[in-house]
């Protein structure tokens, strides 16, 4: 192969662009693709194959390429496995072949090809079994793979956009342009996407004048939005098409479009199929249409002495154009017994036409094609033809990938030897080569009627396909006739898979890796099916295709992620309204969805030391806890009380105004999913608090009950973000509150435990709930969120005399553990019912129906061996047992539960825990073994409340 640039082609006068390939400095022209520039420079070997590392050259153009994979650029912006045939050449472009070291042309790994008889299909599965696959895997993984993904973050910018249209036309060939024009004429708003920078698709010289007129009309039409360099990659439900636009400007690399179309016209064209013969993968074997493409579009000849080989009529035109461009066309070999309709034109130009011959194998010199062995079938005679380029055409494969993704059903069309769209599921129609119509006039007519259908919905009359004869399929006898170039699958591999009884096309695909390369079988699928059909003695239609999945062409991860939050915005922290104040107090923060203070270390205190100090502050003095993250839902309306009765275990409707109750929420299975307080603000106005992590879910759940079960007269509103809440807790809490000058009476009789009061402090409206998660007197004070810091500062000021100190979650967790209060979700699991945590009597006491009640009456709810929440007191008072440790019974030794909470109590001077244990309540007082990761402890099962069991301190 010895490519060169045609002096007479206008491209020859275009601006010269320097670029590098595998380290070599080369020169191309403005407008070239990388592949065209490489061919013009006579580059033969551009890559090495995946498995045998055979030298490979450019085989096609556009999407019809599988060998010329390159790594573009260096550093963070480097991109692996791009098709050289789709990369527009730019000045200074730096590309490397993805396989081969030190270069594709001279690859030390090429020795593998000599071992190829050992490396048949399933080689890895059968060979690397003993003693263990893991032993071989690292070395095999190193040798495998294509390009290298950069490890640095992608510095390029991507963008996601959406658009809608009446009609989306995919493909800007003649059929697509005809469809777009017809639809626009009929009044539709049309979007036309075309992957290439130019329009016209595969139309050759014979259609040049009509093409130019159509292109002008498309560009001029105000109703057609033309999107060049935009590849439709995915077809999803309800006519949503994802398309990727190559922008390549300094500020933006790619733009991903989600296009919702009323109707869609698939004019994706067709890809030429390779022929199967020995050494059909050698550099210098190309698709005939690609040879023509490089001549016409880029003025680049892929070789000086091409030999055309064809199974149908299509390569005749390519041979004629090659001859007219001045190449020394060695001949045209037609595999059929009778020549095509252009035979006379070919002969007139002086091209030798050989009919009824088979291509047997290529001959090579220094890795490149130097000739082709033919077999004259009628005489049974071999002929050797010298050439530097074999231009093959096995026929055309309609690009049905998007159609298939849309859910449509395919049919095998004998006339073209490939699969065509048969039945649509979505509002789309294929036209032109995408449904097997290859003739230029028929393509235009077919496009027009598809465009009319898309604009009006009226079914078009069927267009008659014009097809010639196609050569019968013959299994190549030669070794190494490649079905899939990129994954190195030969006809012999498929024969072996068939011998080993692989029949399903999906199984053969996975066993041989046929069609599993980066091109997803674009070139190899139909040839593989033809081979399988022949081997199995079945019709190709009966063999069927493998599934086509998006994307049609590779899309950068950055483009897929475009428009989605990344980095710090991926799951943004929820910050407390007084976050900065906590920081000023020296708080350390923990991630609980909200960033919450875990402790406020003083000096060199560790977290455990700070938590112990803060615990004792609350037990003996007064502490300040930020409770703003607790969910706050307000329910208002005449039916609010009734509704709360139905959705929770409590009886809100029987709560007096100004009263507050502890409340459990269950789901219909009777499982606990949230707890909190219900406070009554007015006759028809309730405040429901939820766990910090549960606010959104609980609001959604209440809405669901309201809309779908009980459409009562009330509204539910999430006011979590509107209020900031600080809890003043400890025996001296009342003293602090009395110093605030608030207009609420804080005396024990006027404001007992479990009440809510509204008031004013320093001009701010506040809500105060007396509820406690610590076992000490607590006032939960809520203000408008923007007043959070002022409130915290004011409370610290009022508490100065009582030595008030901020308390974080770590201390709070010890305080609640000492009291045996549980956290829904950590001390309960997806099986825990109210009776398992000591609320059984609340269920039986409550009159009337409520969510979960019916499930609690099921025998399973009162069965034995239910895990019940109990306290744990390790025998060694210093031993803090890890959470998750198993509670092990005596005989038989098996896990009877798990430790759900565990900490050292500075108040009691011993370690404590909570555990879910089978029939735990009956086991109170007994000793059990705790086990975790090989270590074990003894512990006594106890009541949950270890501190102040009578609750005297709470009610003080």
């Amino acid at each position, binding site marked *: 192969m010895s490519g060169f640039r045609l002096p007479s082609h206008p491209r020859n006068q275009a601006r010269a662009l320097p670029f590098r390939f595998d380290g070599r400095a080369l020169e191309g022209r403005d407008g070239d693709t990388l592949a065209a520039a490489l061919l013009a420079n006579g580059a033969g070997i551009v890559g090495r194959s995946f498995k045998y590392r055979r030298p490979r050259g450019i085989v096609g153009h556009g999407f019809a390429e599988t060998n010329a994979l390159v790594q573009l650029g260096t550093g963070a912006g480097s991109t692996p496995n791009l098709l050289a045939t789709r990369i527009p050449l730019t000045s200074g472009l730096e590309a490397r072949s993805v396989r081969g070291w030190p270069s594709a042309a001279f690859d030390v790994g090429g020795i593998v090809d000599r071992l190829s008889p050992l490396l048949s299909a399933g080689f890895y599965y059968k060979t690397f079994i003993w003693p263990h696959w893991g032993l071989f895997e690292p070395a095999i993984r190193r040798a495998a793979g294509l390009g290298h993904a950069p490890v640095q973050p992608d510095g390029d910018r991507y963008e996601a956009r959406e658009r809608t249209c009446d009609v989306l036309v995919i493909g800007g060939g003649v059929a697509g342009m005809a469809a777009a024009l017809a639809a626009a004429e009929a009044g539709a708003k049309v979007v036309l996407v075309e992957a290439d920078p130019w329009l016209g698709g595969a139309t050759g010289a014979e259609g040049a004048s009509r093409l130019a007129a159509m292109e002008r009309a498309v560009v001029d039409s105000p109703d057609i939005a033309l999107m060049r360099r935009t590849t439709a990659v995915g077809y999803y*439900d309800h006519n949503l098409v994802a398309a990727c636009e190559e922008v390549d400007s300094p500020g933006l690399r790619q733009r991903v479009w989600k296009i919702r179309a009323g109707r869609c016209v698939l004019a994706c064209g067709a890809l030429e199929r390779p022929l199967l013969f020995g050494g059909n993968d050698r550099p210098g074997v190309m698709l005939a249409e690609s040879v023509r493409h490089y001549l016409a579009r880029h003025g680049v000849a892929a070789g000086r002495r091409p030999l055309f080989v064809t199974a149908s009529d299509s390569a005749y035109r390519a041979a004629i154009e090659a001859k007219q461009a001045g190449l020394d066309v060695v001949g045209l070999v037609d595999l059929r017994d009778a020549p095509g309709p252009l035979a006379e034109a070919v002969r007139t130009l002086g091209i030798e036409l050989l009919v009824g011959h088979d291509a047997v194998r290529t001959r090579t010199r220094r890795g490149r094609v130097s000739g082709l062995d033919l077999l004259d079938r009628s005489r049974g005679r071999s002929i050797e033809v010298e050439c530097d380029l074999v231009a093959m055409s096995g026929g055309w494969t309609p690009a049905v990938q998007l159609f298939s993704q849309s859910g449509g059903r395919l049919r095998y069309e004998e006339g073209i030897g490939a699969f065509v769209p048969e039945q649509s599921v979505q509002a789309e129609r294929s036209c032109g080569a995408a449904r097997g119509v290859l003739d230029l006039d028929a393509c235009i007519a077919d496009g027009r009627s598809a465009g009319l259908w898309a604009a009006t919905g009226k079914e078009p009359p069927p267009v008659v396909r014009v097809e010639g004869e196609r050569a019968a399929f013959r299994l190549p006898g030669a070794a190494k006739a490649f079905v899939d170039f990129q994954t190195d699958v030969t006809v012999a591999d498929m024969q072996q898979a068939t011998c080993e009884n692989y029949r399903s096309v999906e199984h053969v695909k996975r066993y041989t890796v046929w069609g599993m390369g980066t091109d997803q079988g674009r070139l190899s699928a139909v040839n593989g099916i033809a081979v399988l059909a022949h081997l199995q003695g079945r019709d190709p239609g009966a063999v069927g295709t493998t599934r086509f999945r998006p994307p049609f062409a590779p899309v950068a991860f950055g483009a897929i992620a475009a428009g989605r939050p990344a980095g710090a915005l991926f799951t943004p922290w929820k910050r407390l309204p007084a976050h900065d104040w906590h920081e000023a107090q020296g708080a350390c923060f923990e991630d609980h969805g909200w960033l919450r203070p875990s402790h406020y270390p003083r000096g060199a205190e560790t977290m455990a030391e700070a938590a112990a100090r803060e615990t004792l502050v609350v037990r003996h003095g007064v502490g300040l806890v930020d409770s703003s993250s607790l969910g706050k839902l307000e329910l208002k309306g005449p039916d609010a009380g009734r509704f709360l009765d139905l959705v929770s275990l409590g009886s809100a409707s029987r709560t007096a105004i100004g009263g507050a109750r502890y409340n459990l929420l269950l789901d219909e299975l009777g499982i606990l999913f949230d707890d909190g307080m219900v406070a009554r603000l007015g006759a028809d106005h309730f405040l429901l608090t939820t766990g910090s992590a549960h606010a959104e879910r609980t609001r959604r759940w209440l809405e669901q009950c309201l809309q779908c079960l009980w459409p009562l007269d009330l509204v539910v509103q999430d006011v979590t973000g509107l209020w900031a809440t600080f809890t003043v807790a400890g025996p001296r809490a009342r003293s602090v509150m009395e110093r605030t000058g608030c207009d609420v009476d804080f005396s024990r009789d006027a404001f007992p435990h479990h009440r809510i009061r509204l008031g004013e402090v320093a001009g701010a409206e506040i809500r105060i709930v007396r509820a406690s998660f610590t076992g000490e007197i607590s006032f939960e004070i809520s203000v408008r969120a923007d007043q959070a810091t002022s409130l915290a500062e004011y409370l610290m000021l009022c508490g100065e005399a009582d030595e008030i100190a901020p308390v974080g979650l770590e201390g709070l967790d010890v305080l609640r553990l000492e009291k045996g209060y549980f956290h829904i979700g950590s001390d309960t699991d997806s099986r825990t019912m109210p009776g398992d945590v000591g609320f059984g009597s609340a269920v039986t006491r409550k009159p009337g129906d409520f969510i979960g009640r019916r499930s609690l009456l099921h025998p399973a709810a009162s069965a034995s061996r239910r895990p019940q929440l109990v306290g744990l007191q390790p025998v060694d008072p210093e031993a803090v047992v890890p959470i998750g440790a198993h509670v092990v019974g005596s005989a038989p030794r098996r896990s009877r539960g798990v430790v759900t909470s565990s900490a050292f109590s500075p108040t009691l001077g011993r370690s404590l825990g909570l555990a879910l244990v089978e029939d735990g309540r009956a086991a109170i007082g007994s000793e059990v073994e705790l086990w975790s990761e090989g270590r074990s402890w003894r512990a006594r099962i106890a009541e949950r409340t270890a501190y102040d069991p009578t609750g005297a301190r709470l009610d003080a």
Partner: protein
Amino acid sequence: MLSIDCPHCGQRDETEFVCGGEAPTGRPPPDASDDIWTDYLFGNANPRGPVHERWLHAFGCRRWLAVERDTVTHRILSVRDFADAIGHRP
């Protein structure tokens, strides 16, 4: 991606919605048998063809919708506000 015609907001992408699964035909009375209750909790018809589902327009009007969807073609056959569909509103 489905396109759902919300009766309150108009034609919107599936990403704005949350699928709540097959819509139950109605909550059994408190004295329903264990079998009926268990079927209410866990039973799904999972048909091949039209199915009645509950979808929440979570990033829109936040209303629950009764959506009839064909599981074969993914065609949406009807969309109503759920409360209307079960006769909770006139």
